[in-house]
């Protein structure tokens, strides 16, 4: 299953006379929400379209391109044999390959199946599973090819996408902080839901970018931007576990970025994510 990761081409293919960057947007297994975020930049969309060439974006335009791309945005997890071939082809024609969203960066919610027997899961949904071409695991793009940048989130943040595009057309580095959601809460003046209300919150180990929406709306963070750098998930799990059963701590981490390393280790320690008991793999199969 573990294939060597395809590196970026040594001589990046790059469009000649790159006055307007050639941008592509493609998807693998996903909900379309991250690419929709580009169309949700209602105030900037036409100005962006004046400054870049959106040469491939099937959801928005009937003009198609198979490259080369100055920047290719990739949404979705790699989840079928065709998608493995496709991402390798796309890597070869992309100067910069940027993965967008929890599915592309961490496998997404569909990566929960990685803990279960794929044949049993498939047979439970489809009466004729043999018609369905699907990989046993849903995995992030970086497991297959080198990636040059990422936007986190489920979905990505419109503000971070705007920052990335402005940086691209002005030729500077995008400012995408790697802080915990906690810092965003403090800046927003949101009272800590964990301390004040005893609500389980993944804010201390989760990367900011969303604007601390969940605590601001009276809920604990559910980790959809994935772990921040050097996140001490084990310590948070111990703290959360003082009044919870093991499985219920795993449950908290078993969301949209469950397959990311720091979250996965907590889930494994807690006996795996919730799911169909009859399809659960033994520890040796995982």
């Amino acid at each position, binding site marked *: 299953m573990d294939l060597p990761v395809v590196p970026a081409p040594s001589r990046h293919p790059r469009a000649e006379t790159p006055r307007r960057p050639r941008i592509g947007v493609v998807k693998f297994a996903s909900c379309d929400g991250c690419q929709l975020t580009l169309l949700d930049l209602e105030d900037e969309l036409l100005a962006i379209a004046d400054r870049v060439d959106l040469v491939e*974006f099937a959801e928005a335009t009937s*003009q198609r391109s198979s490259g080369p791309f100055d920047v290719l945005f990739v949404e979705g997890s790699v989840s*079928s044999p065709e998608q493995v071939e496709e991402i390798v082809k796309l890597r070869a024609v992309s100067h910069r390959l940027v993965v967008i969203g929890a599915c592309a960066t961490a496998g997404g919610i569909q990566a929960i199946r990685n803990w279960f027997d794929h044949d049993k899961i498939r047979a439970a949904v489809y009466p004729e599973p043999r018609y369905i071409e699907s990989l046993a695991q849903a995995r992030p793009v970086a497991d297959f090819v080198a990636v040059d940048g990422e936007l986190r989130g489920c979905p990505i943040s419109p503000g971070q996408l705007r920052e990335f595009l402005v940086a691209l057309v002005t030729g500077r580095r995008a400012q995408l902080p790697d802080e915990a959601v906690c810092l965003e809460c403090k800046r927003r003046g949101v009272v800590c839901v964990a301390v004040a209300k005893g609500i389980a919150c993944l804010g201390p180990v989760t990367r900011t970018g969303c604007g601390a929406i969940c605590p601001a709306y009276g809920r604990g963070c559910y980790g959809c931007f994935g772990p921040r750098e050097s996140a001490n998930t084990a310590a948070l799990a111990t703290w959360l576990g003082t009044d919870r059963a093991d499985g219920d701590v795993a449950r908290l981490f078993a969301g949209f970025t469950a397959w990311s390393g720091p979250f996965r280790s907590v889930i494994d320690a807690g006996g795996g994510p919730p799911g169909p008991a009859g399809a659960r793999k033994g520890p040796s199969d995982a």
Partner: protein
Amino acid sequence: MHDTITAGGSTGDFTVDIAGLTRVEGEGSLRLQVRDGVVEKAHLEIFEAPRYFEQLVVGRTPDEVIDIVARICGICPVAYQMTAVHAFEHGLGIEVDPATRALRRLLYCGEWIESHALHVYLLHLPDFLGYPSALDMARDHRAAVEQGLALKKAGNRIVELIGGRAIHPVSVRVGGFSRTFRRTEIRALREQVAAALGIAQRTVELVAGLETPSFHRDGRLVALRHPREYPMNEGRIVSTDGLDLAPSDWRSEFAEQQVPWSNALQARGRDGRAYLLGPAARITLAADQLHPLAAAALAGTGLAGEIAVNPYRGIVARAIELVDATAEALEIIDAYEPPRAARTDWRPGPASAAWATEAPRGLIFHAYELDDRGHVAHAQIVPPTSQNQAAIEADLAAFAPSVLGLPHAEATLRIEQLIRSYDPCISCATHFLDLHVEVVS
């Protein structure tokens, strides 16, 4: 990845091969087989990789399910959240505050506005005006595209305020919401939604005047119907041939089946009949419940009869619903009084939970079995596009002969346009359309 099918032959035989049908949500293809001018097969192939949501929710709590099922679709996450939350509350016998009901309807109006404005202006209008995309169309029709974006933004603003963000909102919980909303917060939407209502009314005038291919279908239409309001969160399942079912009883009349060419399950009537959902079905079955401003807009077009039978008029149906959703949103905003509490207390436990609501693309049905701990033991999720798939295939088979005499580029464009007119959400149904026409002689 995509087959190219070519066929030679005598006069009248031809080959069409399009690398991809675009401006739809998700990935799939259409395969048409034509013999002696007769369409023998029309298969909508959905090859969006399966994600197995009905298994992903097993073992989860009702509130976790509400977060997870949103991820089936980035365009209509609220439809999934609303259907699930109503199913759980119905199954567990939970009553919600009338203000909660009003806020949920406002949230759903926001999604209808965002989704319909996206489809009308960014995905569908370029077909009628002859552009590959709205971005290209904006070079000649900037003001029109800008007004479409403003309309879409108003819908997104509603979802953002109530849900925390425009895509995959976070506030919907069993029993209510995760927080309360003050009157001033809700009232702050007023100016933008009032402007959106004006844009929606101008949109009806714009799209009603578009030159539209003629096509007549007589198939069964299915939608929810409610005695006092245009169907959204609640109502009974009705059809143009007299069906009348509780929203939890979808399975007594309809069933899903698998076809070899698609990663999406197809739903049909238990008698095997195809049926069509969505704006045209709702307008046909519940025109008398439209907001008076939407009813006036519909009467002004004189197209109510044609909307029922010509899918190309789907763009007009969506524009009418944009008037309805903006007008209703405005009334909810004006009448809003905060609930006593953010949510009703409830206790987890076993239940059979099923419900149907109206997503922007049509009726959506969820059923869950909850075990003794209140965790999901079994789930069935039936999105609108899985239900529309069989009717779209039948319509394509009926429509294709009328364009097979046209030059290839034009014939394929007409067929693509017909598919887009249903606003298929292939991501939901599992998901990019390639068009293959195979001529067998």
